[in-house]
């Protein structure tokens, strides 16, 4: 399916609005994180072969009940292995993991009924219709035989109602992904593991998926979502940044940004050329962190603790230096930049 550039622009517009909305929800989220931990890992390690191929290396993290926890990182960094350890598909080589307060290997049938798992690839039966696949999933989860209403509701949500009699092999990739999601939700699980749910689907559907994830969260579900789309970190309450089998950091999206750049960023554009002396003056201000970054002769980036309080003082300082500030604004870096920065910092440390 091709997406027009205009459509992408509109969608990205919606996406870019979300961080602000989420910042407003920060207080709510802080309260959420006081909730019990539904998943907790300590020194979680998984290696294959003779132990020389370490897929997951000493992971320590926790997932608060009712949160959306994102595991973000490039392909092959160990996200799927981590999810498999959490669901009990793999047993850890070292360390501990607790889900619902017990090791996944000890899950009872009722524990499993509380888990929904969306696998990375399409695993439904290609010769069955949408409805038959969904019905089969409901059966093996033991959903009551009076389930038609629920199945129809799910099909409505994933917008497959019109295609319920279509054979799965004739569905598009996005439709198959939606069918998989519906099958994952069929038994109304408490804890959802969604491995790359938005991989290979168009931006509109990605936004829809995240909308629904938030709906699920609002209903009290806990979601562990893996993605290689770094930008999707915006939608999560907590983000674990993974790289080469390690979790480099776990934090809220806002804190990740702050930590990656040592604070918040203020972008300044002036009419005059910004000289070395001007930059030194700004760097000496007590709320400015580190060096001022030069973009070009008239543009700089200043890192501060709190952009909102720093902006008036920065304007004042610039005027004292004889600089005419054309624009000054708080800059929210993209998560692609944040991610690269975190990786680079880890590289410098090591």
């Amino acid at each position, binding site marked *: 399916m091709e997406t027009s550039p205009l459509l992408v622009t509109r969608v990205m517009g919606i996406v870019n609005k979300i961080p602000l909305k989420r910042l407003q929800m920060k207080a709510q989220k802080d309260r959420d994180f006081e909730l019990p931990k539904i998943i907790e890992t300590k020194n979680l390690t998984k290696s294959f072969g003779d132990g020389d191929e370490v897929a997951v290396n000493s992971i320590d993290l926790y997932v608060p009940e009712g949160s959306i926890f994102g595991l973000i990182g490039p392909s092959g960094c160990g996200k799927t292995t981590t999810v*498999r350890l959490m*669901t*009990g*598909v793999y047993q850890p080589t070292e360390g501990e993991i607790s889900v619902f307060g017990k090791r996944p*290997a000890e899950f009872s*049938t*009722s524990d*499993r*009924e509380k*888990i929904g*798992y969306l*696998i990375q*690839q399409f*695993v*439904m*039966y290609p*010769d*069955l*219709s949408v409805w*038959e696949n969904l*019905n*089969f999933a409901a*059966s*093996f*989860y*033991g*959903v*009551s*035989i009076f389930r038609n209403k629920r199945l129809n509701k799910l099909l409505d949500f994933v917008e497959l109602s019109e295609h319920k009699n279509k*054979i799965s092999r004739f569905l598009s990739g996005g439709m198959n992904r939606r069918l998989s999601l519906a099958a994952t939700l069929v038994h109304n699980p408490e804890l959802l*593991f969604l491995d790359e749910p938005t991989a290979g689907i168009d931006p509109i559907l990605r936004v829809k998926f995240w909308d629904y994830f938030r709906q699920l969260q609002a209903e009290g579900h806990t979601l562990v979502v893996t993605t290689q789309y770094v930008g999707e970190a915006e939608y999560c309450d907590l983000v674990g940044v993974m790289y080469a089998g390690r979790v480099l950091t776990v934090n809220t999206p806002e804190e990740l940004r702050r930590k990656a750049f040592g604070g918040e960023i203020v972008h300044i554009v002036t009419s005059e050329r910004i000289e070395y002396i001007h930059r030194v003056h700004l760097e000496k201000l007590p709320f400015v962190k580190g060096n001022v970054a030069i973009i070009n002769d008239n543009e700089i980036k200043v890192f501060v603790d709190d952009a909102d309080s720093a902006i008036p003082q920065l304007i004042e300082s610039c005027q004292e230096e004889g600089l005419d500030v054309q624009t000054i604004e708080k800059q929210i870096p993209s998560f692609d930049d944040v991610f690269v920065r975190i990786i680079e910092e880890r590289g410098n440390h090591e």
Partner: protein
Amino acid sequence: MNRIFKSLIRIFSFPQKELAEILRQPRLILTLVLGPFLIILLFGLGYPDEGRSLRTTFVVNEQNPLAAQVEEFAKDLGPAIIYQGIKNDQEVALASLALSQTDMVVVVPDDPVAKIQNNEQAQFLIYHNEVDPFQIAYIRSVGNLYTSELNRRVLASLTKEGQESVSGLNENLSELNAVSSSVLVSPFSSEFHGLSEVQYTPVGFLSPAVIVLLLQHLSVTISALSIVREQRSGIMELFKVAPLKPLEALISKYLSYILFNALVAAVLSALVVWGIGVPMLGNWINYALVLLILLFTSLGAGFAISLISETEIQAVQYAMLLLLASIFFSGFFLDLRLLWEPMKAVAWSLPATYGIRMLQDVMLRGYPIPLLVFQGILAIGIVLFLINFFLLRKKMG
């Protein structure tokens, strides 16, 4: 109670799914149901209800006293011999044998009377160009029959001459004279009767074995592909996380394939009995029981294959090996009594061996199910079920 209901829902999850998947493939259904029936039908049409007729060339010297009788004797043997004429030159006759223009060359001994008078046997030389041991045995049997018939005729002729020459010499011989020379030469004869009143054609006799073999192969193939396919597609990972227990999954899979294969078996049996007219002397309940236990055990073998195979190709190969072993060792192709004793263990490890034995008893003889054979296949089925359960439990973590 809720837990039991949920478990039942999970157990019945696969039959519906499997049935829907199979019904969505009309060609597959056609192959599964009509394919085996067509094979039996074609076999019936192609396999004659009598022995092979051998095109036979005789090599006889023109002066040979038997020359005139060779053709008559040959024709008396009925359809077993197709008389292709007499040749004087043995080399020419053997050349046509090498070219497959004739199936058997019979070289009639020169001057047989002189040899017999010299107290020697006059020997017929019989040449063939067969490599198949069964065909060689058949040619030997036809040759022996021809020689016996010739011996009997010569003896009858000589006895008749003797009777004429001794008439009136002795009164005691008058009783002997009253007996026909042919009875004197062959005082005993035999007539064969089977316990079953029904005379079976080769198709009738082989039908139960064909049904068993086809159902075993269908069950093994369909179940051999089942789990390995799910493992390859990745859905097994979902089963590992889902509340579906290995025992529930296994029962569900057995149930779905038994239901479907029983349907195929019912249609196939109806076509064989009412379509081709193969007699069914036994009890239909016994018949159904035999097929059910055969399906259960064959599915067990298929699931075991599926659980040890890494790929679908590997699973199909194992299923084909099992079919090949069944053709040779189940009694389908060779009578089990002909097998070397230690090899009988191989034969009795195959579900088809039990199935053929039981179905022949039930269908062709009208007997009840042989209990020991039934217990044997049931034991194998249960052992396979347990093995499959442990293998699946290991796979599902």
